[in-house]
């Protein structure tokens, strides 16, 4: 059968962010995928060389909106690695609090979007309402919902007021029952099992070959987590588990993320209750010549920063590697052989930083019908409806009221 590929975009009126995937299909099956990135390239590595070490933290924070803590965390660890200095204990606890708060709101955002792609719009609305509680917690602690401006080479910039902690603990206690309900709902729902089990499988060998990171690799049985492998922050002060499953399909990725959220709440509560006293800053005066490497477990995997200094005011070379850079090429292994209706959920399953599954283009081999991102999401939702009717699942009445537009 002849295969034709017709590109759409990337600057198309219907798309929201420019990045796109060209899927080549034969009938209903996807045969090949070509990932094209680079439309958001801003030259941050070169920009970081113009700033001082302290100012560079703010540029680095704005690499991504959702993983806004993981980049400064890795960068400050890299600068501290050059001078072999450690931040004081209270600063480590505060850094852990901010990092786990960000993990929660990022996983909740992804859960909502996954529900939207599968057709469960109620889940979308409810999970994002839950996410507002976390964003309020971050606003109380750091002053902003997203770019927290708390990290500094040597410690943190601002302290946590002990009067705020009872309010924060109350909000955390409000979230926990709803999360547990979501976990049980996902575990028991047969339609979700039919849509996500066995779909988009990333085998263990492929995960090792592509060096996949984060929940993408933990769902395939590769037990990697920077928080357990490296001693940093306050992660070794308390008991928590690393979640590893072995099938590697989309269902496992959903399960890994929900269970990670429950562990995050455990870590957050421990940190708030056992915050030690002391300094929050190590007052680094001078960065000697040398090079340093810093890592951190972002919600999507391991972030890696490499900083080289020559004794001056700012970095001479700053290399940034986000975890999605290693996870995106795994599409070559997961999407071949899948149906078109499953394409949107497979592309969303690795949680690309700021979900870029809106920028999809599909071409038919005969060149007759062309789908864009919205059509693919609609196809996925129709597939869920078909499964619901087949399994006789009763649709809850609220589904009709809250089904919003795409």
């Amino acid at each position, binding site marked *: 059968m002849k295969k034709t590929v017709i590109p759409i975009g990337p600057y198309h009126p219907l798309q929201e962010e420019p990045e796109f995937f060209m899927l080549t299909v034969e009938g209903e099956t996807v045969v090949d995928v070509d990932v094209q990135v680079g439309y958001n390239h801003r030259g941050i590595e070169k920009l970081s060389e113009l*700033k001082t070490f*302290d*100012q*560079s933290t*703010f*540029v680095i924070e*704005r690499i991504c909106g959702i993983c806004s803590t993981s980049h400064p965390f890795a960068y400050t660890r890299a600068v501290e690695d050059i001078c072999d200095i450690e931040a004081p204990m209270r600063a480590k606890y505060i850094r852990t609090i901010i990092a786990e708060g960000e993990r929660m709101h990022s996983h909740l955002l992804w859960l909502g979007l996954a529900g939207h792609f599968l057709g469960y719009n*109620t889940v979308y609305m*409810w999970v994002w*309402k839950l996410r*507002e509680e976390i964003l*309020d917690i971050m*606003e*109380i*602690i*750091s*002053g*902003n919902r997203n*770019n927290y*401006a708390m990290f500094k080479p040597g410690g943190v*910039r*601002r302290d946590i*007021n002990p009067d*705020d902690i009872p309010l924060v603990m109350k909000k955390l206690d409000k979230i926990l029952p*709803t999360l547990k*309900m979501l976990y*049980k*709902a996902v575990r*028991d*729902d047969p339609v979700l099992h039919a849509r996500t089990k066995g779909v988009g499988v990333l085998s263990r060998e492929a995960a090792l070959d592509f060096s996949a990171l984060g929940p993408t690799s933990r769902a395939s049985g590769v037990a990697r987590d920077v928080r357990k492998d490296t001693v940093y922050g306050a992660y070794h002060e308390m008991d928590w588990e690393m979640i590893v499953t072995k099938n590697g399909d989309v269902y496992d990725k959903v399960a890994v993320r929900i269970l990670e959220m429950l562990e995050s709440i455990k870590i957050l509560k421990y940190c708030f209750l056992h915050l030690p006293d002391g300094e929050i800053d190590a007052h680094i005066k001078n960065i000697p010549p040398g090079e340093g490497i810093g890592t951190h477990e972002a919600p999507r995997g391991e972030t890696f920063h490499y900083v080289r200094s020559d004794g001056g005011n700012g970095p001479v070379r700053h290399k940034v590697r986000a975890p999605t850079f290693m996870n995106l090429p795994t599409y070559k292994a997961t999407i071949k052989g899948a149906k078109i209706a499953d394409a949107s959920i497979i592309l969303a399953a690795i949680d690309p930083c700021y979900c870029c599954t809106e920028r999809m283009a599909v071409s038919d081999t005969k060149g007759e019908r062309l789908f864009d991102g919205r059509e693919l999401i609609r196809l996925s939702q129709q597939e869920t409806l078909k499964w619901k009717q087949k399994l006789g*699942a*009763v649709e*809850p009445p*609220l589904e009709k009221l809250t089904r919003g537009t795409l």
Partner: protein
Amino acid sequence: MRLPKIRELLEAVKALAVGPYTSKFPKKPHTPYPSFRGQPKFNEDYCVGCLACEQVCPAQAIDHTDTVKGGRAVRTINHYTDTCIFCGECEAACIAEHKGIKLSRDWDLAFFDRKKSYESIERELVLCEVCGGVIGAKKHILWITNKIGELTFSNPTLYQTRLRELGLIDNNLLEIKKDGGRDDRLKILCARCRRQTTVGG
């Protein structure tokens, strides 16, 4: 299949009863938490005009111009709200007990004309009496004299500014000594003129 639905229906009823999470802005005003980082604002009483905030700003959202206005030398410091990233570095670097520029809780900052999107403050300048160049803001020099106490008397620029502010000396005394030579050392001088009069050449 019935039990899971009850669990979710309970949540649905709770959601209906409580209502949406969003606040009712603009019908009711919305005040953020006390630690919210809003728009930075200059403080007339505390700011000394030292430009530390301009040096540390990561987004280069603060700049200044030194001009002569109505016979006085004035430094105008501008803070551009549309470039500001609300990080709080200016407040952390401010030498006047972190009160010269302070982050307020204003967040409703939309405007129509970008040319008007800045706040400014004016500080009086002290000029060199030999070359006319800018030494610094007067309040900044007085801040230095307060900080170093009696060591002020080691530097003619510092103690003359301080005594002139206290009203203990006036201009006439210095008019007599205008000879372009050694007596220039007792005037208010910028660094280059001070070196020239002391070391010569």
